[in-house]
């Protein structure tokens, strides 16, 4: 009983910082409709700035409070600066570009932070008053955590009062409920957006600095908190502060008890809860904001490639088939990588282009394919062809299952869920060491047989890409595009959008899985990094570089991106910074992709 109570309190205190961060994310979304991927970075900056301030202040409670507030204000100022310089330009862009650009910001901050604070974790030296324990239920409970528990409801009450009682709050609610109407009534959305972004950033900073006494400031906290905050905001309902509070409590408790009951499966448990909530309430516990699906301003028909282009393509294939005889090994390896990247990009393209669904976690299917192949090879001692076959099968089946309950969700909800799912696959890959070898990975996944591996890659790439392109041009493809263009109309002519999308999910997952399987054999190993967020973003960038509206786009994008990436890796150690800035520049300059040309102003 006492144990349960203590565990419950632990869950409560654990949820506070998550609540603060998620509340910031959710109010920003409510007013600006931007899902701020960089929100975790603001949280991280809160922790680092807090560390810098608190280590310089006298160690007593009052100075601690002052330091915490100063850190939160500093992050709020950073948020305001970010909004006025960058985010403001994103409001009119499709949500995918907003996600990507803010992801770029996150990459930049990831590289800048160690420059300013050094690469090591920074623990806060804890003065006695912070270290104290209090005896409740006959057990010791950290005094700081008890104080923390009070902060959540206080901030919630403050926010609710702000929303309900002030003119500023009234404006926020007006914009959250109906942006166009608010604009028509003369609400100055520019200023409001800046203020709200500062508020949200300040909340994230507060969350970051408050967690300092319990952990240390480190460079991984941005990603882990953003994934959890996404889950909270989706479960609570986008735009709802109270929903965020309830959902963080739920997640906090789930983690506190999950650690005890199912230490390895906490993340999976969280995902199950999320799935249950969303299948009962598709807008989350308290959400009501109607969400638009992908922006449809400039859609042009998919046309089959011209004769010339097709001849060129087949010519290139024939030429590549002879490559093992004349291309130096290093370049053959690069070419292999480009081909695999092209399969991955085409897989994602099916989902994002004709399917109209944003996937921010396509690494999940890539990784599942890679692990599926490697494990089939290792545990079943299967020959390589069978192991390669396992890749699309494993990934496709799991993608179909996952797709089955997420395809009803639209836009950002789907993007966040795919990301969350990929993180779960990643966590499983890291933690289920007996099966996956954890961070040590699975080694010795080498190709075998008489045929050079390159030919396997080339052959399967051609088959997979041709299949995907034919699917887009088929009856099914037309129906899928129909469901994307207008769901009510699709329903009214007897189509079933959910089912069409689920199949797209499965096909796309299977193709991405094949890419993963090929990559496993190409590298001779599988590591959890194959499932990391970076891999998903690789795919997104390839598709966006090439443009969503063309069939050839993802292939062009794969070639361009692999080249760009290799270049960055070779020329700078700050590749995140460079990549982040590149992403931001691309999004601002070429919202239609390279193949789409520069946007007319």
């Amino acid at each position, binding site marked *: 009983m006492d144990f349960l109570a203590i565990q419950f309190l632990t869950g409560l205190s654990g949820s506070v910082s998550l609540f603060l961060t998620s509340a910031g994310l959710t109010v920003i979304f409510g007013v600006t409709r931007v899902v701020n991927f960089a929100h975790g970075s603001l949280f991280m900056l809160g922790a680092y700035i807090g560390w810098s301030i608190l280590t310089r202040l006298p160690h007593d409670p009052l100075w601690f409070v002052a330091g915490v507030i100063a850190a939160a204000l500093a992050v709020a100022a950073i948020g305001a600066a970010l909004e006025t310089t960058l985010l403001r330009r994103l409001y009119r862009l499709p949500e995918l570009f907003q996600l990507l650009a803010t992801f770029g910001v996150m990459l930049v901050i990831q590289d800048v932070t160690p420059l300013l604070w050094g690469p090591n974790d920074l623990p806060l030296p804890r003065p006695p008053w912070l270290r104290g324990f209090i005896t409740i239920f006959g057990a010791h409970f950290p005094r700081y955590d008890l104080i923390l528990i009070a902060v959540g409801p206080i901030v919630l009450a403050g926010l609710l009062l702000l929303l309900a009682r002030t003119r500023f709050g009234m404006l926020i609610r007006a914009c959250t409920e109906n942006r166009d109407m608010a604009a028509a009534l003369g609400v100055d959305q520019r200023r409001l957006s800046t203020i709200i972004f500062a508020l949200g950033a300040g909340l994230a900073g507060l969350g970051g600095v408050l967690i300092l006494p319990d952990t240390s400031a480190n460079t991984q906290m941005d990603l882990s908190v953003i994934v959890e905050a996404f889950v909270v905001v989706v479960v609570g309902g986008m735009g709802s502060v109270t929903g965020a509070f309830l959902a963080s409590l739920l997640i906090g408790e789930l983690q506190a008890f999950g650690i005890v009951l199912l230490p390895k499966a906490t993340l999976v448990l969280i995902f199950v809860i999320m799935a249950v909530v969303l299948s009962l309430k598709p807008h989350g516990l308290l959400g009501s904001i109607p969400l638009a699906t992908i922006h*449809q301003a400039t*859609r*042009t*028909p*998919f046309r*089959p490639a011209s004769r010339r282009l097709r001849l060129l393509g087949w010519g290139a294939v024939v030429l590549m088939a002879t490559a093992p005889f004349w291309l130096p090994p290093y370049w053959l390896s690069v070419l292999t990588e480009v081909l695999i990247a092209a399969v991955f990009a085409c897989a994602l393209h099916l989902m994002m282009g004709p399917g109209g669904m944003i996937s921010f976690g396509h690494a999940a299917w890539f990784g599942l394919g890679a692990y599926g192949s490697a494990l089939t090879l290792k545990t079943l001692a299967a020959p390589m062809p069978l192991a390669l076959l396992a890749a699309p099968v494993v990934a496709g089946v799991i993608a179909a299952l996952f797709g089955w309950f997420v395809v009803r969700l639209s836009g950002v909800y789907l993007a966040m869920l795919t990301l969350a799912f990929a993180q779960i696959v990643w966590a499983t890959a890291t933690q289920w060491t007996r099966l996956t070898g954890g961070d040590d990975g699975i080694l010795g996944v080498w190709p075998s047989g008489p045929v050079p591996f390159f030919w396997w890659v080339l052959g399967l790439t051609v088959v997979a890409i041709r299949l995907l392109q*034919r*699917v887009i*041009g*088929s*009856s*099914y*493809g*037309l*129906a899928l*595009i*129909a469901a*994307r*263009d*207008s769901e*009510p*109309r*699709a*329903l*009214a*002519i*007897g*189509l*079933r959008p959910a089912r*069409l999308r689920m199949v797209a999910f499965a096909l796309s997952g299977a193709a991405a899985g094949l890419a993963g399987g090929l990559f496993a054999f190409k590298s001779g190993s599988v590591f959890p990094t194959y499932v990391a967020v970076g891999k998903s973003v690789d795919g997104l960038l390839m598709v966006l570089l090439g443009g969503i509206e063309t069939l050839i786009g993802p292939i062009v994008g794969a070639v361009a991106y692999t080249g760009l990436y290799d270049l960055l890796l070779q020329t700078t150690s700050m590749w995140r910074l460079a990549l982040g800035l590149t992403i931001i520049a691309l999004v601002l300059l070429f919202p239609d992709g390279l193949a789409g040309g520069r946007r007319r102003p």
Partner: protein
Amino acid sequence: MTLLSVRKLSKAFGGNQVVRGVSFDVAAGEIVALIGPNGAGKSTCFNMLNGQIGPDSGEVLFDGMSIGSWSPDRIWRLGVGRGFQIAATFGSMTVRDNVRAALLSRHRAVWRFFRPASGLFTQEADALLARVGLTPLASQGCGTLAYGDLKRLELALAMSNQPRLLLVDEPTAGMTPTDRGAVTDLLLALARESGCAVLFTEHDTDAVFRIADRILVMDKGVLIAEGNPAAIRTNALVRAAYLGV
């Protein structure tokens, strides 16, 4: 013979009771206009009739079957075509592909993954397009069409399954007066040729009184009057709803 029978249909959004206990019938082959001021609940009624939203209570009988809880795709298969108040078409496709998508669905040919769709049902699609006067625009992207042509395309889509009932929400809204007359004529001709019943809403009173066999009048979620055009013209409740007298 009664084709569509609506009984005590109700719907609320939040606390806002938008449709309150609406009941009416539509006979096979009959042309019925549903009119009423903006916000009366007409579009919401239509959305419940073809399954886009579920009613809170009440019953929708089509050909004797209770379809109140059916999904739009099932209702479409029964032979109910739908035109939306704000034209809903597939914006990234050519006009012909819009109709082709509907025909693929009609002929249950959607789940084919390999053969190019571009050669399928072209003649049938072109015949439908000819019927609504869009032949010259068949290969154009749907995004380039004038609004009136989009509404015609919607009619082609709604007719693609040889429906027994057409539900058309404001077919001439947003058009020039000449276009309006033409589309109204087209609607009448389509109905007479195919023998399908039409339930339509319309703000253009000329069209309503010209082609409707019968008129239903809704105000604030309630059906306040029903009768032939001559009776509606002189109905005091209708005059009150529209003219406030």
